[in-house]
């Protein structure tokens, strides 16, 4: 048994018990439904902003994009404008492809040593596919949940839910995003547990968010399809939060508070963890800069003054030998 995922799993189970017992046994609805969510959102926003500003406070001394295509050079050589972007506009396109479609991950290959020996590199799409599925399903789920936080519910949101539930299976209708989210997050978890190389460098901090998100997804799915929840009461609570008139309506089951607690923990944990890749991907100097350093000078704010060995000093060292060899000199002997 691997201690790294065991610890993370135990932590998530403990969080579940804490919220469940807190509400069921101790009646701490106010704590889990109002105080903790408020603290979590504050921690998230403030922590996220501080992290970003901390990154921003370090300058980018050199322009070091990774060039992944033909440079712009002679006019008749086809320039790869996206993977070797020369202009700011092209960088924007590169970044959009990176952030919305995980372009770099799409290149992923799997290396294999075959008989011969012949080393092969096969296109490996599953990580890309499931990562993309995971992130989009999470985003859709998040946006869908705005129905609990907006009154009246905007029309576009109703359309989104209709699209998400277009399969019309079961009652309440199955939402594809929820199923995909759970499936993808389980894929990512199994990958970490089952592939020896990935397991080798995975940290407890890699398993924890996965278990937590599984907890969030499962508690949400439970509420919607199995244990049921007083939905009007839930919205009353959530609307209370966003209108700053917090109150706890009667008759909401403990599982709802577990769900909210998991989400709160995720939010509060976010700025202090690798989840900040969400903000960091925008700031990666190997991706977000144009590759035109030979045409436009990038300024290093701390460009150091350095001592160099001048030509004069060099000639002083070798003047005699240079003259003898017939090399021109500035100063004769």
């Amino acid at each position, binding site marked *: 048994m691997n201690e790294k995922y065991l610890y993370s799993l135990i932590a998530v189970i403990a969080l579940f018990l804490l919220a469940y017992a807190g509400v069921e046994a101790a009646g701490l609805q106010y704590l889990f439904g109002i105080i903790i969510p408020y603290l979590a959102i504050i921690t998230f926003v403030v922590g996220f902003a501080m992290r970003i500003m*901390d*990154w*921003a406070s*370090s*300058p980018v*001394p*050199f322009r*070091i994009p*990774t060039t992944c295509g*033909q*440079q*712009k*050079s*002679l006019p008749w050589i086809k320039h*790869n404008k996206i*993977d070797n972007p020369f202009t700011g506009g092209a960088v924007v396109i590169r970044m959009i492809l990176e952030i919305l479609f995980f372009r*770099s991950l799409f*290149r992923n*290959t799997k*290396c294999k040593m075959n008989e011969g*020996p*012949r080393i092969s*590199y096969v296109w490996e799409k599953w*990580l890309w596919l499931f*990562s993309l599925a995971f992130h989009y399903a999470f985003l859709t789920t998040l946006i869908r949940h705005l129905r609990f936080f907006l009154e009246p519910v905007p029309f576009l949101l109703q359309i989104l839910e209709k699209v998400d539930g277009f399969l019309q299976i079961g009652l309440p209708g199955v939402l594809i995003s929820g199923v995909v989210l759970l499936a993808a997050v389980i894929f990512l978890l199994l990958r970490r547990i089952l*592939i020896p*190389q*990935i397991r*080798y*460098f995975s940290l*407890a*901090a*890699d398993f924890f968010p996965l278990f937590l998100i599984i907890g969030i997804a499962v508690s949400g799915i439970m509420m919607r399809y199995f244990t049921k929840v007083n939905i009007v009461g839930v919205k009353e609570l959530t609307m209370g939060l966003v209108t700053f008139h917090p109150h706890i309506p009667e008759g909401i089951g403990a599982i709802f508070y577990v769900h909210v607690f998991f989400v709160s923990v995720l939010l509060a944990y976010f700025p*202090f*963890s*690798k989840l*900040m*890749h969400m903000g*960091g991907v925008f*700031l*990666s*100097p*190997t*991706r977000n800069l144009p590759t035109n*350093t*030979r*045409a436009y*000078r*990038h*300024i290093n704010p701390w*460009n*150091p003054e*350095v001592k*160099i*060995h001048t*030509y004069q000093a*060099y000639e002083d*060292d070798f003047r005699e030998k*240079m003259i003898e060899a017939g*090399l021109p000199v500035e100063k004769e002997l």
Partner: protein
Amino acid sequence: MANLKPDELIARIDYTPPSTGWMDTPTVIRAGMFCYAAKPPSVETLGLPYAREWNPLDDDWKLPANWKEIVLEGLRDRLERFRSFKVFMDICVRCGACADKCHFFIGTGDPKNMPVVRAELLRSVYRNDFTKAGKILGKLAGARELTLDVLKEWWYYFFQCTECRRCSVFCPYGIDTAEITMMAREIFNLLGLNIDWIATPVSNCYKTGNHMGIQPHAFKDMMDFFVDEIEEVTGVRVEPQFNKKGADILFITPSGDVFGDPGTFTAMGYMILHHYLKVNYGLSITWSTYASEGGNFGFFTSNEVMKRLNAKMYAEAKRLGVKWILGGECGHMWRVINQYMATMNGPADFLEEPVNPITGTKFENAKVTKMVHIAEFTADLIKHGKLNLDPKRNDHLKVTFHDSCNTSRGMGMFDEPRYVIKNVCNNFYDMPINCIREQTFCCGSGSGLNASEDMELRLSGGLPRANAVKYVHEKHGVNMLACVCAIDRAVLPPLMQYWVPEVDVTGLHEMVANALIIPGEKKKTVNLRGEDLPGMEDEADE
């Protein structure tokens, strides 16, 4: 390394990591996998701290008493100066996309050579001393304390990274292990922990103008020798210029090509091309003995040292009053020129925006750095029909092209050299797509690791490259590996000798010169290497 045969080396590779976690698996520094420690005089040349005799295999590295403080302060300082470093420390999600992209991992199977783990070696200490989560949760958050063993482990593995950036192509956040390795090496230099194969070239380059420490008169001697050689083969006596004031163009290339085969043939190639342009078009190109080094091992030391060495190029161009600078075939030299030079030592207002006076082509992509790559330059000449070429002279060659890491992922120069090759020889076959262009594999010896004592590391790291060459050798009968990098020319021959002995190595401009019909040349029967030209075998016998 001679004691380990290729198939034995392959058999040793096991991609399954050990059951103990990497933090709990001690690192053993093994002979053949590291380079010797920097000799004190080389460290002293540039006034870098803690020059001393020490040996990586000894327990005592003779570190200063406050080494830990120096490391942590060095980290803090660099986190504040390099956003790249700070962001790369924070945002890795350990997805593993980079894991099997590193040539050292593929060639050794050592899990600490997975780029993610290499970075984690340093990140773990960063977390421990610079992040809240690490301070509170410790090992659970992947944090560990900085100890002597940790420092030694860093040293071992950050000198098993060639800063080739292949991992950063695949990383969804563009995390570049080269950047992390560079930071680690800067920190080693705060403790006098450089390797000699970097420190001595740096010292030489600073004092004598080139890595080899060739003094000006000796440099000219070697070139004179090339002049004789060229005359023997072509019947034409070329006249290279040195330190020539008022020349049109200053030419700078790595000194390695003046020093050892097969780079010397490329150097002769440059000289023939310069001569051709002088005779046909009156173009005056000069070499410099002061700036006689294109390569920049300062790049593998620290950004300050890189700047100190690089400064000579502009200084010499200014002194000689040339219009612009032409750069020879080199890998990391071109990453420095392309991504660092103007920032560090610009603006070069005293130079003109580069224009090819023969074709009229403006090199707009180089308008501020004012330095043009010779592959760009030659491609332009060929495109405009300015070179009289007979590619049949290279008909005995079946050529493939090795994209150098730095010109690929730090520049993006792919089609210029291919265009030149296709015009100077008739048989060209690219390696499979996952091994070339931006996905190219390192020669295994970049970033100052091309010493002889780490031959096992080099042959292991070069395996992916050699394996791809072997593939085109078997499929198309490829017998020549062309490249545009002086380190490649120095290290690929032993690599080929080990893995694919049937394949030889050449620079681009050796092939150009062999195909070039020089005015007044005699009936050529051999190429620069003294090998018979195709169809001329009989003549050679006379």
